[in-house]
């Protein structure tokens, strides 16, 4: 049976470069994120948040320590395992990275297609439904060039969510969005967590969306410095 935690790291360390020029960017990071939890990772730039996100998101090889994603150890995992795990997660990047030659629907379809022909049988309905959820139901056949920055970002959100990921990683998802669309996107993520037990792990500086999180983890200098539970304000922050 799957473990209780969607994401669990132990003694996670990471170094960029080797030997004398090597820079250690993560020091013994310990994280435990339950399924269905919405967690926000905060910290100044250079604090290692993005490195954590890429390590637990199967985009970078784990060097030292342990990362368990949905019960699978990522340290020492081969390319095949990493690729298989990527099918089970969704990524929302700061830049939308939409394919300029594809329509909104086709871009979303790229997120669905990876799951094989079975998942694609009703791709049109699935993609359109997802675009409606992010408020773009009337723009399904638009090319990215015809969409505003915020709309593009919402298409990228739809692409990340259409495959029903078990964990969603988001890097500043609201940075390019106005207040209203930002709330729309984050509340959508919140709903996925509540209804489908989707785990949301998000890096953000956007204070407008902090209210949606269950927990806020703060990093500094490659260490977790503070954890704060939002829903239970009575509990004292854990200091490391």
């Amino acid at each position: 049976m799957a473990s209780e935690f969607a994401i669990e790291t132990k003694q996670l360390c990471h170094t960029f470069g080797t030997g004398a020029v090597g820079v250690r960017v993560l020091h013994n990071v310990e994280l435990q994120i339950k399924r269905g939890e919405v967690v926000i990772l905060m910290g100044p730039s250079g604090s290692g948040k993005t490195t954590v996100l890429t390590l637990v998101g199967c985009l970078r090889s784990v060097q030292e320590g342990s990362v368990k994603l949905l019960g699978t150890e990522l340290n020492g995992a081969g390319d095949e395992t990493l690729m298989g795990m990527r099918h089970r997660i969704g990524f929302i990047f700061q830049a939308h990275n939409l394919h300029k030659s594809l329509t909104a629907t086709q871009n979303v379809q790229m997120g669905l297609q990876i799951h094989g022909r079975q998942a694609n049988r009703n791709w049109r309905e699935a993609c359109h439904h997802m675009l409606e959820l992010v408020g773009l139901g009337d723009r399904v056949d638009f090319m990215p060039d015809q969409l505003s920055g915020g709309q593009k970002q919402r298409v990228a959100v739809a692409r990340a969510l259409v495959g029903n990921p078990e964990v969603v990683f988001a890097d500043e998802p609201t940075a390019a969005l106005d207040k209203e669309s930002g709330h729309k996107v984050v509340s959508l993520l919140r709903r996925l967590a509540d209804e489908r037990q989707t785990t949301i792990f998000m890096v953000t500086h956007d204070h407008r969306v902090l209210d949606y999180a269950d927990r806020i983890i703060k990093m500094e200098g490659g260490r977790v410095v503070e954890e704060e539970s939002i829903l239970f304000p009575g509990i004292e922050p854990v200091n490391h």
Partner: protein
Amino acid sequence: MSQIIGWLWGRLPIGWLQLMHNKTRLIAAVGGVTFANVLIFMQLGFMNALFETSVFSHRSFDADIVLVSSDFRSLREANPLPRSRMYQALAIPGVQSATPIYMGTRFWTDTATGDTTNFRVTGVDPNAEVFEDQVLSRKTRHLLVPDTAIVDQRTRDFNSAIQATLQSGGSVNVEIGGRSISFVSLFDQGASFDVDGSLIVSDQTFLRLFPNRRPGTPTLVLLKIDDPKSAAEISEHINQHLAQGDVKAMTKQEFIDAEQRYQATQTPIGFVFTFGVGIGIVVGLVIVYQVLSTDVQDHLSEYATFKAIGYPPRFFFSVVLEEALSLAALGFIPGLVICLVLYQLAAAKTGLPITMPWTRPLFVFFLTAAMCTISGVIATRRLNAADPAELF
């Protein structure tokens, strides 16, 4: 279109859509492939014309076996052989008849236009049936009159006034090799790379035109045999029998093959055209590679995103290949059309039989597809630069 590809692939035809999205790049790429195709088609057209025209005379003879001097390489430089070998060959069982053929080249300057024409002169026995073309074989009767010639109406830049006179049944007197010769009739053969046209004369006239050639030393001897199927066998038999070593017998097909082999391997012309085909392929390869690698470069962040979603390396490989093969197909069609037009123009200009056999488009398309695939394979090496960890 994209729906058809999508259905075939079982996925979105990203490569196709990418190509269609950037029209300027698409036109440049298709233009490059088209250009390469035109180059290859033209070189093949000329090369084929070389091979075809070099054996026009060979094919025109009605023979099962041909006797040539033992050092035969090409008709252009064929040495004469002793006629006594013809009689020896006639003694071999199965050999039905033998006819000597004299060949040489003579320049003729048309006094009306000042143009000089290089004729291949073929001297035949006017009473013998020498040519496959029955009409032509009967025409040789005209040559019983001394100093007459039948002239090739497809001679390069042939004087149309002479042609008109001959067509209306008249004759035209010209001076060739210091002798007055009368053109009395026309036949149809065509120019080749080494001569502009052909003349057929009687063996007697031939010897007058070529005073240094002696009777009894023909260039070729044509043999007819009872059973054409046993040509190889009998030619082998003749070679064993004529052990003096100054002549050799070949079947007609061997005779044609020997000439073409000589043109392909011994003359620089064959090499030049093969080289031209190679250059066409390299040009196409470079252009397609350039376009595909720029395209990969431009889409690195999208590809990295797809990698983050979990697409395997073979997916990207197939996208680039899809683009490569689409370019091959899109460039091939205009290339073929342009070449069909150019073939007509070149054939009219040079008098060479530049034609498009149906196998050539298949061959060139295969070559184009291979060329684009190789470019695509090289371009995919750039995919490694698409690192999803760099997206942040």
